[in-house]
């Protein structure tokens, strides 16, 4: 048990007639980063709220750091940090005041709460703006302060619910850096996201969640291998040549989008596929507007995992 930080067995949560969690299972090893990947409405926030004692599950055995989230909520609260989907800060108070407030509520005492606030402001690059009201913070700054607030006591387990949704690329990079710098300190992190890339960047293991249950679990590489890894997109000048291109290119599992004059296929060796496609097109005299390698999108992972991708190919 000592090396399992989060245990979820058959978690159920119902809103009215709708099941937000429908027998969800999860194991997270201590000291690891676990990604929970799923589209809007999959049940990610519900899961995080249950794990952080904000919401009572209807059924299931749910333990955080060896304590039951319902019967031992207080013990769980002593050991967790929470970054909710929306900022949980006092907007009228300054950044430092917020951190001091939360430090006092963690019973650090006045002096240590103040020292800890200064430390965290420094670490999250907010020292200059500590006096400003949170209301005036940018989205990225607010997120960083919120993250700092969830780290007041260096929690054993940290929950991050879509930490970068709604941030611009710079804000996203800032939050990613912060999360990375946390890892290694022994904290267990459970992170939810809608972005495969984010899970890929930050998580050791990923659970793909849909309709309140886990539909796949593994490392990013395992999941991507399952979905065919990287993909190549080729946009032709003439839609009429798509058929010819599919026939001659050294690719399998090709999907075609006639409106966008696009063909797309999974690849295993990135460079070989790229040079092979470019050479084949040149030899056949087919003009391409664009040839690009990319990661599979969440949609593609999803369609694959739910078994719907065959239908997409047939439709194409």
């Amino acid at each position: 048990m000592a090396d399992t930080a989060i245990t979820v067995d058959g978690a159920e949560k119902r809103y009215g007639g709708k099941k937000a969690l429908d027998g969800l299972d999860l194991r997270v090893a201590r000291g690891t980063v676990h990604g929970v990947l799923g589209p809007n409405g999959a049940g990610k926030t519900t899961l995080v709220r249950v794990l952080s004692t904000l919401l009572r599950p209807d059924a299931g055995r749910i333990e955080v750091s060896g304590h039951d989230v319902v019967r031992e909520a207080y013990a769980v609260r002593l050991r967790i940090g929470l970054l909710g989907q929306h900022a949980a800060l006092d907007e009228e108070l300054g950044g430092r005041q917020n951190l001091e407030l939360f430090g006092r509520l963690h019973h650090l005492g006045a002096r240590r709460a103040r020292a800890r606030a200064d430390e965290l402001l420094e670490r999250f690059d907010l020292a200059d703006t500590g006096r400003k009201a949170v209301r005036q913070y940018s989205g990225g700054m607010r997120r960083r302060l919120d993250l700092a607030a969830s780290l007041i006591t260096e929690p054993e387990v940290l929950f991050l619910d879509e930490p970068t949704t709604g941030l611009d690329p710079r804000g996203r990079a800032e939050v990613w850096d912060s999360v990375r710098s946390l890892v290694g300190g022994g904290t267990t992190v459970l992170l939810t996201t809608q972005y495969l890339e984010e899970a890929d960047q930050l998580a050791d293991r990923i659970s793909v969640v849909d309709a309140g249950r886990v539909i796949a679990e593994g490392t990013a590489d395992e999941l991507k291998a399952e979905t065919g890894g990287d993909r190549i997109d080729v946009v032709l000048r003439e839609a009429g040549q798509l058929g010819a291109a599919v026939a001659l290119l050294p690719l399998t599992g090709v999907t075609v989008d006639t409106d966008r004059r696009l063909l797309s296929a999974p690849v295993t060796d990135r460079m070989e596929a790229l040079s092979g496609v470019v050479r084949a097109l040149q030899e056949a005299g087919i003009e391409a507007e664009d040839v690009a390698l990319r990661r599979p999108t969440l949609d593609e992972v999803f369609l694959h995992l739910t078994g719907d991708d065959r239908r997409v190919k047939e439709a194409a």
Partner: protein
Amino acid sequence: MTAYALTDSWTMTRRELARWARQPVQLVVNLIFPVMLLLMFGYLIGGGRGVNGEYRDYLIPGMLALTMAFGLEGTMIAVTRDLDKGVIDRFRSMPMADGAVLVGRSAADMLQSAMALVVLIGVGAALGWRVHGGPVAFLGAVGLLLLFRFAMLWIGIYLALVAGKPEMVQAVQILVWPIGFLSNALALPDTMPGWLGTVVEWNPMSHTATAVRDLFGTPGAESGHVGAALVWPLALLAVFFPLAVRRFGRLSR
């Protein structure tokens, strides 16, 4: 965790004080608003139908009670704002004493209402209003006003938890005004149409206003309402305090 009940409640109260320090204008506006109402009804509108003696002597205790009633709005706005901003989620996910969020809210709101009483009584005195009862009766009157405010506070917390979103507050605000004005705060019920007079006499706020006039030794004041001014708020508290606490606990549903 109960060991921290006092510390945490005090921390939560200090949070509100810090907010006042950050937004002093807001605080001053809240304190000045009842004074504006007093001046408006006392001097601009010139009411006081059927009141024996100085209307001012009748009006000021009424305004004190009305100010306590309107405190309900302030409480509701503050609670829905916290719910909306998600900061209550952070409090609830922390190892703090169970009641501290609500106790902090109550302490801060009661303090602000006490300040509003001081300001209004001060302005009244400056306008020449005098209390004719003794100091004990005076403190008793202030006590009844604060007791009434305390009942309004828990009704406010309960309604905020039921309403949830700040958008819903407006709907309730519209109700607070007729309840405030359908009382004897500004005019004698005798001068109103029969059914309205009955409603007004039943309004708990009217009992508080009448009892306060009595304790202040206001000339021509009716006596015998102190009991009702005690029982009504206590009855409201007996209903709404447990409802609010239960509703707060049910945030986890």
